[in-house]
């Protein structure tokens, strides 16, 4: 009788252990579920923002950020989806975090434009031979990037509106600290574009995303965006992008200041547009995927907080009324996952702690009234 009792106890213990093991082996359940679909209520559908959810780990913060984007009346976000985060090893793709961001955005009624860049270590030269940064890619990595873009587009088919290939390739820093090279960037587009279309013919592929700069050819730090864009066309880039991604920062100038080749201001993008038209590409639209003013008290190109608000709202108005070729205007940057503790914090619309800055409230008033 005693042995029977002991056997029952042992079986019971075993069951408890098995139950525990089963529980801990279960895949983690989402703590923050994707909410029911919402709609962006806006009177200015051109209004967009560039979010920074790439390094935002906690799902509730992703959700709250995107709720606030919707509540501000922004129909669009531009977000960075780093290749290096999703393909640690060649051919092994992890889109869990990207899925979370895209699904939450869609649930808020927001259209997503995905910027793709940041090269994994295995697609760059071996570090023993050469120290390279995440922004380094040479010809040997183009095919790998094409494969990644194929997988990304296939995975997000119907869920992401457009993709941007690379960021500001006309800056040395963004080109892996090498001399910038429009022909090399065009060669990258030539490899990647067909792969994106192969995965989804409806995916819009954006190119350019050039940094506004006046640096002349041969400068060690950058190349004038207008020269760079022309050189892209000269290298045969036209068939390899569906629309241009442009950056339209205002620096110290008010919104309406007329553009000039030797001036950096918001309307400089009109000069990029002229380059497109000169090259027979007028049918393609422009998406402004970064723009804005900075209100740091000390950065050399900042304005006062009140001016920043005034210029930002005027910029949305200007793009809507004056630029029929402009599909969307995204201001940099909605919210950072962490304070950067430098002048770049003064681009943010919302604090790390989700406290809306006055610019958020003013744009909200403009977009939703």
């Amino acid at each position: 009788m005693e042995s029977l009792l002991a056997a029952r106890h042992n079986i019971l213990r075993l069951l408890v252990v098995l139950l525990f093991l089963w529980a801990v082996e279960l895949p983690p359940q989402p703590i923050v579920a994707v909410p029911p679909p919402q709609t962006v209520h806006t009177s200015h559908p051109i209004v967009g923002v560039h979010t920074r959810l790439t390094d935002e780990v906690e799902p509730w913060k992703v959700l709250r950020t995107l709720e606030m984007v919707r509540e501000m009346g922004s129909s669009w976000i531009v977000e960075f989806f780093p290749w290096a985060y999703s393909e640690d090893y060649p051919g092994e793709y992890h889109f869990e975090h990207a899925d979370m961001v895209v699904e939450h955005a869609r649930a808020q009624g927001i259209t997503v434009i995905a910027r793709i860049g940041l090269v994994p270590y295995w697609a760059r030269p071996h570090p023993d031979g050469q120290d390279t940064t995440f922004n380094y890619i040479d010809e040997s990595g183009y095919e790998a990037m094409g494969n990644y873009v194929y997988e990304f587009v296939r995975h997000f088919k119907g869920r992401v509106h457009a993709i941007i290939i690379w960021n500001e390739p006309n800056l040395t820093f963004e080109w892996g600290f090498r001399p910038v090279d429009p022909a090399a960037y065009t060669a990258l587009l030539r490899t990647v574009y067909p792969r994106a279309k192969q995965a989804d013919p409806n995916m819009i592929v954006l190119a350019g995303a050039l940094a506004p700069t006046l640096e002349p050819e041969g400068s060690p730090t950058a190349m004038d965006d207008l020269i760079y864009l022309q050189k892209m066309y000269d290298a045969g880039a036209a068939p390899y992008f569906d629309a241009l991604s442009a950056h339209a920062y205002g620096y110290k100038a008010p919104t309406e200041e007329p553009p000039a080749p030797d001036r950096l201001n918001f309307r400089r993008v009109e000069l990029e547009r002229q380059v497109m038209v000169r090259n027979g590409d007028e049918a393609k639209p422009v998406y402004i995927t970064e723009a804005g003013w900075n209100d740091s008290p000390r950065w050399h190109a900042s304005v006062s907080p009140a001016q920043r608000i005034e210029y930002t709202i005027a910029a949305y108005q200007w793009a809507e009324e004056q630029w029929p070729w402009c599909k969307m205007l995204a201001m940099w940057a909605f919210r950072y996952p962490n304070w950067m503790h430098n002048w770049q914090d003064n681009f943010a619309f919302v604090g790390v702690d989700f406290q809306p800055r006055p610019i958020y409230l003013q744009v909200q008033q403009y977009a939703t009234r």
Partner: protein
Amino acid sequence: MRNIKYHISNFKGWGWVAIACVVVATIALLAARRPPDKAWNQVRQSGVVRFGMDPNYWPFDGLTVSGEFAGLDVDLAREIAGRLGLRAEFVIIGSDGLYDALTTGRCDAVISALTPDAKRRWDTVYTTPYFDAGLVFVLPAASASRFGGDLTGRTIAVEFGSDGDARARWLVRRTVGLRVLTRDTLDEAMQAVESGLADAALTDTTTARQYIAGHPALGIGSRQTSDPYVIAVRMAAPELFRALDRALAQIKADGTLERIIEQWLDH
């Protein structure tokens, strides 16, 4: 079990010496295998330490009309290099590229009104802070030391849309009876304090010190936030890091740092 106890109790004399020798040899071997600090070797050989800097942040990092580097960070970097018997050179890097410039060896260290970034701890080390640029209260000098703790019933003046404004809105939600006076410009916010309309203004330390330099009736009260400025060095350059940090400690200890700060902010 009994056997183990027996062996332990008899394991003495030469046995412990042998273990100690193995441990010492292992440590020595590991130390010998540690890659040499190439950055420090290069700095010593060349006699030059190259500081990466985005010269767009006056009065810390800037360029004169004739293209020479100037600012608080520039003077501090030169002082640190001098203490090490070296010469400071500056490499212009956009703020986005400062860490990549370290990675690729375009500079040996970064000094650029930089605050530590937790995300870079895997490959970067930071010196102790040399300046805190966080938000502070500015108020009549006579009451500066008594202000800060309890804000109930106080009135704070801020520039509309500024970091001080954002912080004040945060404080209002947490303090009963705190009032915020919003002004279009910082000067107007400061004038509200001088005229007695507000008990204090809230702004960053640099702005506060620069303003007070011309308005001696005002003083700095308690700190609200902290933005410590540091120098960044690659993790793979531990000897360079130690040298810079030691020199900075000396400069702090003998009052040179405060003199440099005063020279740039208090005039």
